[in-house]
Every structure is written in structure tokens, then in C-alpha cells.
């Protein structure tokens, strides 16, 4: 019953059975389900945000007394002596080792992971996709301590000749300068970390590449693209935000990996000269804290280690934020 102006009289007049206008007959389940679910989802989100904030507050509160009492510059000093009457500690050494090892891990894991994901979604025959995917995911099921043991006992012997070769032939380049460390070099740890984070990159990239709209892919092929060109123009740009997210998760794992790194790392003695070489030893934040956890005998010492943990937290946060910005900018152009 619409009038000339387009406004319906049903909106104004009472409905059948004397019901008020604009009410249904209550045949649905009602708003309770909506409210419960919405509430639960909101609560979960709030809890997660609260947990992260509380952890940040804990880290800062524990670290602040030690930081103010520090006689060295926290960010640029290489000395680590948090015990004793005058604590003096700086995290430069750990920062370099952690960042360098994680960068190597990313440089190896992301290209290989994306390539494996592309293979599984675009090139592999259908019968192979599931088993191959499970096989790659198995890498994630291996406990990190097993990676540490394997690296120490087996893998080391394979990587050592490669390191020796690089040191002998390309030793003039500062990153490959020869050092006297033979155990856990940054290079070696980076490779083991790459193997550990590979399944994360692969699994998430695989999911994203699967979602590529078939229309885009077929359109590219119809215009005469080869398979590689189709992937380059249709699949990869679509999957870029997902791949970046996957890489950030993988980077988070690489930065914080503790047990495997603790097994493999070679600590440096005090007073060793600074070198940019990737074949140098050195501890990461996580392995330093794990190694010394039993000796947290007084608040000042504990505070120093927690300050180191805080730096790791902030570092991961910054990297994730950069990734988010890149993804958001990307999204603005694809929608």
C-alpha cells in the first residue's frame, strides 16, 4: 500500500492482530544470541589487548629501577655486568646478534616459503598437494629443542665447510670477515632459524594464494600470459598482504626463539673486539635471559635482564607496526 510520495502507510498504521507498526512476528531466535556472541567476541578482544598492555607495564616497571641505576649507556654499550654494587650493562651486542640472525632467517625463509607455497598451489598435481602440504607443516611440529640438538650434532658439520669457504674467499667483505669462532656463528643460527620459521611462512602463504580469485588468474591466462607471468600479475599482488603478515609472524618467532638458539650459540668472552662479521659468535636476547635465569638473585640484576626483554618486545612491536602500515597502504589500492 504505497502512497504517491513513496512513504508506506504500513510504517504508520498498526499491523494485523493490532501489533504496533514496524514489529515482526518474533519468529526468529531473538537478539539474545547476537548479544551473547558479540559480547564474547568483544570480551576476547579486550582481554588480548589488556594482556599485551599488562605485559608491557610489567616489563617497564621491573626494568625501570635497573635502567636508572645503570652507569653505562643501555643502548650503545657492549659491557654486561648487571650484578655488583654498580651495575653497568648495555645491549648492543645482543641487539646486533638478534637482528642479524633474524634477518638471515627471513632472507632465507621468505623466498623459499613463498616459492614452496606457489609450488603447492599452482604447479603441483592435485594428488600431491595435501601430502606435500602436511609434510611441510611437519617441520613446525618438531620441538625447538630437537632443532637445537640436531643443529649441534649433525647440521654443524655441513655448514662449517661453507663458512670456511666464504671466510677464505670473500673474507675481505666485512660481513664475511674471518673470526676465531667455530661453534654457533650468527650465520649458522640464522640458517637453523630459517628452517624453523619456514613452515609458518609456507602455511599462511599457501592459504592466501589459494584465495586468489579464479577470474583474475583465468583473465591473465586468456590474455596470453605464461604461467609465471600469470602468477606474477594475478597471484602475487593479491597475496602480498598475506605474505607480509606471514613474514611478520615468522619474524616474531625468529626474534624470540630461545631453546634452539641457547643450545647452538657461542658466547663471546668480555673484551672481544667488535666485528661486523656474520661468522662471529654472540648471544641473542632470548638465549642470554634463558642462560642466566637461575642466577636472578637480586632485583637489580633481574631488572637488567627484563630490560633486555623489553627491548626485544619493543623491537617486535616496531617491526609489526611497519608491516601493518605496509599492508594498509597496499589495501587502499586493491579495494
Amino acid at each position, binding site marked *: 500500500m504505497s502512497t504517491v510520495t513513496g512513504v508506506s502507510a504500513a510504517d504508520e498504521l498498526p499491523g494485523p492482530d493490532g501489533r504496533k507498526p514496524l514489529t515482526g512476528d518474533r519468529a526468529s531466535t531473538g537478539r539474545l544470541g547476537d548479544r551473547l556472541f558479540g559480547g564474547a567476541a568483544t570480551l576476547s578482544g579486550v582481554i588480548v589487548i589488556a594482556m599485551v598492555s599488562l605485559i608491557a607495564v610489567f616489563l617497564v616497571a621491573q626494568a625501570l629501577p635497573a635502567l636508572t641505576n645503570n652507569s653505562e649507556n643501555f643502548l650503545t654499550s657492549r659491557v654486561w*655486568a648487571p*650484578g*655488583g654494587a654498580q651495575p653497568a650493562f648495555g645491549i648492543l651486542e645482543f641487539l646486533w646478534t638478534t637482528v642479524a640472525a633474524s634477518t638471515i632467517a627471513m632472507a632465507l625463509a621468505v623466498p623459499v616459503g613463498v616459492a614452496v607455497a606457489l609450488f603447492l598451489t599452482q604447479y603441483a598435481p592435485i594428488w600431491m598437494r595435501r601430502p606435500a602440504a602436511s609434510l611441510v607443516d611437519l617441520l613446525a611440529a618438531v620441538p625447538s629443542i630437537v632443532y637445537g640438538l640436531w643443529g*649441534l*650434532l649433525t647440521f*654443524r658439520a655441513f655448514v662449517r665447510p661453507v663458512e670456511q669457504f666464504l671466510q677464505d674467499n670473500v673474507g675481505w667483505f666485512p660481513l664475511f670477515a674471518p673470526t*676465531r*669462532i*667455530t*661453534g654457533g656463528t650468527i650465520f649458522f643460527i640464522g640458517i637453523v632459524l630459517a628452517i624453523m620459521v619456514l613452515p609458518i611462512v609456507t602455511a599462511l602463504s599457501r592459504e592466501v594464494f589459494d584465495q586468489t580469485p579464479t577470474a583474475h588468474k583465468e583473465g591473465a591466462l586468456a590474455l596470453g600470459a605464461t604461467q609465471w607471468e600469470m602468477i606474477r600479475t594475478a597471484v602475487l599482488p593479491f597475496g602480498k598482504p598475506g605474505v607480509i603478515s606471514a613474514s611478520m609472524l615468522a619474524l616474531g618467532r625468529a626474534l624470540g626463539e630461545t631453546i634452539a638458539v*641457547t*643450545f647452538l*650459540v*657461542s*658466547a*663471546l*668472552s*668480555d*673484551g*672481544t673486539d667488535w666485528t661486523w662479521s656474520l661468522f662471529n*659468535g654472540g*648471544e641473542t636476547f632470548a*638465549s642470554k635471559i634463558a*642462560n*642466566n635465569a*637461575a*642466577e636472578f*638473585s*637480586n632485583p*637489580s*640484576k633481574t631488572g637488567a635482564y627484563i630490560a633486555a626483554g623489553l627491548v626485544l618486545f619493543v623491537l617486535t612491536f616496531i617491526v609489526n607496526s611497519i608491516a601493518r602500515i605496509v599492508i594498509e597502504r597496499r589495501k587502499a589500492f586493491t579495494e
Partner: protein
Amino acid sequence: MSVSRVSAIGAIALTGVLALSACSSENPAPAGNTAGGGTSAANGDCFEGDLKAEGSSAQKNAIDEAISAYQTACADANIDYQPSGSGAGIKQFIAKQVDFAGSDSALKTEEKDGIVESVEAKNSCGSDAWNLPMVTGPIAIAYNVEGVDKLVLNAEVAAKIFDGKITSWDDAAIAELNQGVKLPSTPIKVYFRSDESGTTENFTKYLKAAAPEAWTHETGKKWTGKGEGKEKSAGVATATQGQDGAITYVEWSYAQQNQLAMAAIDTGSGPVELSAESAGKTVATAEQTGTGNDLALKIDYATKEAGAYPIVLVTYEIVCSKYADPETGKKVKSFLKSFASDEVQGSLTSQGYAPLPAEVATKVEAAIDAIS
């Protein structure tokens, strides 16, 4: 109600009954053993119940051996030892979380990191805390050099090696001590303990006492020399085993387990191989720095006694002299008595420890008797 619902409820009820029945009290009432002895067990004063200890990882194998010997004789006793490190053990002992602590060094009597350990322990116990030496763990200088089976070192050369001053195995200083041994020109790779460790503390104390001009660094749980750091004794031992030209300091048991060659130490009276007797000789010359029953020892690392191997580490069990709960005191006393007995001490040799020499053992036994 449907069949599946009935069986579901039945399953839940059955599981509940089984789970709740496990909640009975852990300690059955003592069956009147308090009247001392009477049963045919070797240890007439077995206890029933739990005993908790924590501390040094260097004495872990020794304590495990002692625990298994005790539990074979006393089936109802349950002793638990966590090898989380001397520092952690003392901390937990002061916090009354464990009944006694194992430590590589006696409770400190000077202020360190803001507290005085012996005072804190005394306050926590309500009575003096005693350091009872139980385990002698010799520290071996283990090396892995192809073609060299026997090596002699003295404190000065060792100090220079571990400080990075001597960098090659065919150095003149090493050759002088090893006449007739063909030393290769492999570079020396030093491995040290990257975690804070009592082994490091005792080794650096030895170097500083026996070669003060060559070793000018501080002693302590944190390594101050040169080299490559590996985590825990297992880490340094494995690394040394896998690298030609490697040298490290590690407990005797780890060197044996990893089949590493060990250097003989020349204190001035000829090279002394590491053995239970030679390590025991050094402990016998130690001076007691504690008073009365507090048997904290000051090892004379610079000892020149013939046939004494100077690099030893004595681990202490730190106990209250009078426990607040007399039951705990009885348990500790019973276990430590078994630990100090000749059979158990003798069985430790197979684990790479040296038994306490007779003079020290008698004092320890007297102190244990005085625990209440």
C-alpha cells in the same frame, strides 16, 4: 533418557570416583618407627615421606647416586633434587622452599649483590646454617688434539692458554713441559662456560691462587678470560669433543663421559694425573674457615704437596643446624648420614667424583649427628 546419555553420565561418574580416590593423603601415618631401629633394614632410621633439595648441577650425578642408594634401602622415602644451579638452590633454601641446598661454594659471609647469604640463611632457619662438604668434584682440563694422548700443564701455562696469550699447540711453553711429545701446530680453541657456574668460580680461583702473575682477572661465577662460550658442562664437553685443537675446563665426570683426554697438572713436584686419590689429597690439606660444625673449607689451590691434583671443587650441602620442624631435621640427618657413609662415597668414583678423605669425613659425620 537415551542410552548414550545414561552411559555418558555413568562415564563421568566413574571418572570422578577414580580421580577423587587419588586425592587421599600422600603420607601414610608413620607406623611407629619413631622408637628408632628394630627392623632389619640397613638404615634403621629410614623415613617415610618427601625430602626436597635444589642446587648445584655439578653434584647432580653424585646426589642421584646417593638418592638411589638411599631409596633402595628405604622404599618409602621420596627424595627430589633439582639441579638448577647453586645460586637458585641457595635462594630457595633461604625462602624455605627446599629442605637443604647443594652449592659449589659455601654460603658467603660478605655482602654480595645486596645480601649476606649466611645471615639470610641464619634468619630463615632460626639457627645457624652449616655448610657440609659432601662431594669432591675434580675439575679436569680436557682437550682434544689429534695425536696427543698425554699432556702436562702447569698453572702458569694453563692461565696463559685460557687468557688467549698462548694460541698454538706447538708453542714453546707447552713444548717445554712436554718433552718428547710431538705437538701439532693447530690453533688452540678455548671453550668456557657461558652460564654463571661454580665450576668457573673454582677454576678461576685455582688459576689466580697458583699463577697470580699470569691470571690477572677477577674470580667468580662469570668467566673473565678468553675463548668461546658454550652453555653448561654438556655444551663445553660436546663442543670440545667435536673440534680439533679444543681445550676447556669441565667436571671430571663429563670429561670421562665424552671420552676427552685430560691434562696432568704439574704443581712443582711432578705431573699428577687426575684420580680419586690425588683429588682427595688436595681436599685433605684444606683449611676449615667455618666455626665448629660449619665445615666451610678453604681449598689450597696453590698446594705443592706431592701427588695432589689441585683443581678440585667441593660441593656443600647447606643445612639448618636446628630445623623448625624436627621431622625435617630427622629426614635430612638420615639422608646425609647415608650420603657420607663409606659405601655411598666409594660408589661415587664411578660417576667421576672423589670420595671425601678420612679426616674430612669424620668431621662431616660428627656435624651430621649434631643436626636436629
